[in-house]
């Protein structure tokens, strides 16, 4: 059977309440107990913040590919102007579910969508075998005064009745639904519920207990109450009133802790209520919303848990508290006795005296208290998510077996077009409505294609090729990927702009890059779909920043996002970069760190990135892969020019026969040119016959050095500066020099070292990790940032050379661009990661804002070697 679980109940505001917890826990248990059944999760793309947490909650329980996201035009909440859009959205959602060809659809919470963008309906477009979770019928038994809600609820009940199977969370809810809605009893199944396993007995030391109490402003042992304080049926007022009736000496020993999300002004209202009952301000403490781990700790240390609700569909907080070993006294109404079990623990919620009697007993009678705890711990064994899931799956199987001709639903595209067009017509052809509908349908029902797409970002390269190191990498890797795409993929260069999020097909660039002669009319936004890959190969900080919300959108849809990290230099050397560069790089890395994986150009950069992650406030829910792949070093692939320039020719002629040292790279502070020049000035002053050849364009923050170079007395005799050198020139220059000096203080890769080794040119390099990684024992290393240190290193190197004891660069390993691209493909497709960053403390629940903040502050991460 293919079971599709609609998890909107865990996406709307319900995710902060019992319905959200129930939805997620039951779905996880169904997945865990699915046996041979196939389970797909259907998530609404209209709640983007919830998709990654849900994906994380099912990782690795369910393949990520089994989590499908659908889109619909929005907003669709019950509001004026949304009615027709909501009708369209209902059809689009049902069409999407039909396209999954389910044998059973389970809707976790049908009554969503009032005031938010949940879309739930049954049978308005497709006839799908549908089961619905039946929580309670509170709005039917105690209608809210708002007429819009009453109308909305009535419409939902119509859908509810069209379901094929109802899964009640308690015997009470089943019987109530059969009675009030005249449902066929055989199709109403009590699957029960359970509490999360994190609600358990915890041995908390006295000091920690005190600290927890202090954190919540508690001074005395306390009684715990959990729920939405604003809901009258939860009866927090009953507890307050009963507490006020306790004997004064008993009352003085305890406080009430009210836990639950409150709306603006609600706490003030509760304080007034408490005062009205004669309670002092310090007798009731309001904790607001508390995450589950903290809640479990509070259950563990409370004196008693009181659950005076008038009406519940199940009564989850009572079960949670019981699992934590808290003695629970509770209302004897609706489903609560099913959960609490022990008759001795029950009271009449309408009788304050009854509540007060039971409260007094649980606070003062230790024997009663101990007996309750023992009985209730026994009772909790009747509830487990696995059992609920097994009952649900069994109900699905029975329904499936009983169906006369169990055929899978199918989706017909033209039916959806016709159906939505009928509604759109009522909107009088508003083009924007038609377009947003088209976008949603296009996303939900992509055209079948044999191959997936590897989108390669060429945002910078497609705008202008400045021939920087990064662009050289982008160009070379792209060429390899286009010539040898990964199996099952086609490669599409794409570009983004700072104006708006999204990427477009880089058709013009690609045709020019591949030297094709075709007319390109337009470059539309990309059609990305589940299984595709986006590779952020090019580097354009502002475009990536602009798309910081677009990448998560693509990830939500099932597109894998990867970025290539060339270096962390602006962060490592903030003084060597223009103002704003460091901050920009931090921001860029923050966005990059929310992807599926990061591929660095060297192991050193990967290690530096790992260090950055450990120190950063990056918070994520699923592991992040970190890999590395060396850049290629075969010049012929990138070489576009063949003729030797006149300037290079002249320099090569003037070099003469003495030892000549070469530096290659843009002239910028980090590259160490100033130290090199100063060292050579000392060598020249001491009469050494050595030459210095500087190959590199003028960079930034080196105006003084450039001025000095331009007017240097040795320029043209012992000092040579070649600003604009093509690959052919560079080839000749490498061949004509004696030694490469790599004095850079930091690099992402270190291509000149390999280029030198390819020409058997010896290397004198600064002792930094990336040069050690690239050159190993094939170079001599120097330390120190003074001219004297380098001058001494050059002198020493010359002595070694004279004895032929200097390290030879031949044999230094390097890879071609083809090999580099192959390695990149292995990382992207086979997950060949160097390290994986696993956020610690990951929880199965969906985090809220508090969780996110807490995670951001916590040093919560580990790295594992692969």
């Amino acid at each position: 059977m293919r079971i599709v679980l609609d998890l909107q109940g865990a996406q709307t505001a319900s995710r902060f309440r019992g319905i959200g917890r129930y939805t997620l826990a039951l779905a996880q248990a169904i997945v865990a107990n699915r046996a041979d059944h196939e389970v797909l999760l259907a998530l609404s793309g209209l709640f983007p913040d919830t998709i990654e947490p849900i994906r994380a909650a099912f990782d690795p329980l369910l393949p990520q590919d089994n989590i499908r996201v659908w889109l619909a035009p929005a907003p669709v909440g019950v509001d004026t102007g949304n009615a027709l859009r909501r009708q369209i959205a209902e059809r689009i959602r049902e069409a999407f579910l039909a396209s999954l060809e389910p044998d059973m659809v389970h809707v976790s919470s049908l009554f969503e969508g009032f005031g938010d963008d949940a879309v739930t309906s049954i049978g308005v477009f497709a006839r799908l075998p549908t089961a619905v979770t039946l929580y309670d019928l509170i709005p039917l038994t105690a209608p809210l005064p708002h007429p819009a809600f009453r109308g909305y609820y009535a419409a939902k009940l119509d859908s509810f009745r069209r379901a094929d199977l109802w899964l009640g969370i308690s015997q009470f809810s089943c019987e109530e639904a059969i009675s009030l809605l005249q449902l066929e009893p055989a199709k109403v199944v009590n699957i029960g519920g359970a509490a999360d396993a994190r609600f358990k007995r915890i041995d908390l030391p006295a000091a920690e207990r005190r600290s927890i109490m202090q954190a919540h402003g508690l001074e005395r042992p306390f009684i715990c109450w959990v729920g939405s304080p604003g809901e009258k049926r939860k009866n927090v007022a009953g507890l307050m009133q009963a507490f006020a009736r306790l004997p004064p000496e008993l009352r003085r020993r305890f406080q009430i802790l009210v836990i639950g999300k409150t709306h603006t002004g609600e706490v003030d209202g509760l304080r007034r209520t408490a005062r009205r009952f004669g309670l002092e301000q310090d007798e009731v403490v309001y904790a607001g919303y508390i995450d589950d781990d903290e809640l479990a700790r509070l259950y563990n240390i409370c004196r008693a848990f009181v659950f005076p609700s008038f009406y519940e569909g199940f009564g989850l907080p009572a079960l949670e508290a019981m699992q934590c070993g808290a003695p629970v006294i509770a209302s004897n109404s609706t489903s609560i006795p099913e959960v609490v079990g022990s008759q001795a623990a029950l009271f009449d919620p309408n009788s304050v005296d009854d509540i007060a009697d039971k409260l007094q007993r649980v606070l003062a009678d230790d024997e009663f208290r101990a007996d309750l705890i023992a009985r209730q711990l026994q009772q909790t064994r009747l509830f487990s998510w696995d059992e609920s899931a097994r009952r649900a799956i069994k109900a699905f199987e029975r329904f499936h077996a009983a169906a006369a001709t169990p055929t899978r639903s199918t989706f017909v595209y033209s039916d959806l077009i016709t159906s939505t067009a009928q509604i759109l017509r009522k909107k009088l052809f508003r083009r924007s409505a038609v377009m947003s509908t088209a976008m949603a349908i296009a996303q939900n029902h992509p055209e079948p294609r044999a191959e997936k797409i590897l989108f390669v970002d060429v945002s910078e390269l497609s705008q202008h090729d400045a021939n920087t190191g990064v662009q050289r990498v982008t160009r070379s890797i792209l060429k390899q990927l286009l010539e040898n795409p990964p199996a099952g993929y086609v490669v599409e260069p794409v570009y983004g702009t700072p104006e708006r999020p999204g990427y477009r097909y880089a058709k013009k660039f690609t045709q020019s890059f591949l030297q094709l002669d075709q007319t390109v009319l337009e470059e539309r936004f990309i059609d990305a779909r589940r299984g595709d890959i986006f590779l952020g190969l090019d580097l354009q900080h502002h475009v990536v920043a602009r798309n910081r919300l677009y990448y998560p959108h693509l990830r939500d849809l099932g597109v894998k996002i990867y970025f290539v990290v060339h270096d962390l230099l602006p962060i490592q050397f903030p003084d060597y970069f223009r103002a704003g560069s460091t901050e920009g790089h931090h921001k860029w890395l923050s966005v990059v760190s929310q992807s599926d994986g990061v591929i660095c150009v060297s192991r050193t950069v990967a290690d530096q990135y790992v260090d950055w992650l450990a120190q950063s406030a990056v918070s994520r829910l699923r592991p992040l892969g970190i890999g590395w792949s060396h850049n290629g070093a075969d010049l012929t692939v990138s070489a576009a020019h063949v003729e030797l320039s006149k300037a290079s020719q002249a320099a090569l002629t003037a070099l003469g026969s003495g030892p000549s040292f070469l530096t290659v790279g843009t002239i910028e502070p980090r590259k160490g040119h100033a130290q090199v020049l100063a060292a050579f000035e000392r060598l020249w002053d001491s009469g050494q016959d050595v030459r210095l050849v500087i190959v590199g364009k003028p960079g930034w923050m080196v105006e003084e050095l450039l001025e000095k170079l331009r007017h240097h007395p040795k320029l043209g005799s012992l000092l040579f500066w070649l600003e604009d050198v093509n690959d052919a020139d560079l080839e000749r220059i490498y061949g004509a020099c004696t030694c490469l000096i790599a004095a850079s203080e930091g690099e992402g890769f270190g291509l000149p070292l390999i280029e030198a080794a390819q020409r058997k040119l010896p290397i004198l390099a600064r002792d930094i990790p990336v040069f050690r990684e690239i050159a190993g024992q094939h170079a001599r290393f120097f330390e120190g940032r003074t001219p004297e240190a380098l001058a001494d290193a050059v002198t020493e190197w010359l002595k070694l050379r004279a004895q032929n004891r200097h390290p030879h660069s031949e044999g230094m390993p390097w890879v071609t661009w083809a090999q580099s691209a192959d390695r990149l493909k292995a990382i992207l497709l086979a997950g060949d990661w160097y390290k994986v960053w696993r956020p610690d403390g990951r929880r199965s629940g969906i985090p809220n804002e508090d969780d996110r903040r807490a995670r951001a502050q916590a040093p919560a991460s580990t790295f594992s070697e692969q």
Partner: protein
Amino acid sequence: MAGWFRSLVRQAMFRAHTRIAGRPHLDALVKQSLARIPLLDRRLRAAVRRAREDRYQAIPVRATRIGAADLTPRALRVYLDLMKALKHSQ
């Protein structure tokens, strides 16, 4: 007030109203709070607008201003199919 902001306020009022229906003291409190909204700092409003536009533009179906140029090739084909169906249904 800009149209989008007025709409935001209207939605907030509506949602608040559904939550607090039957509780006049809270109703008054919400109305008081809403009355202060126009006093929000201009920069704050601009930041809210930017965040909203970014969010909506990143998720195309929620974009506030959609034009034909925003459609992907597949969406363009679906759009043309819808337009054809609309004309047929007239």
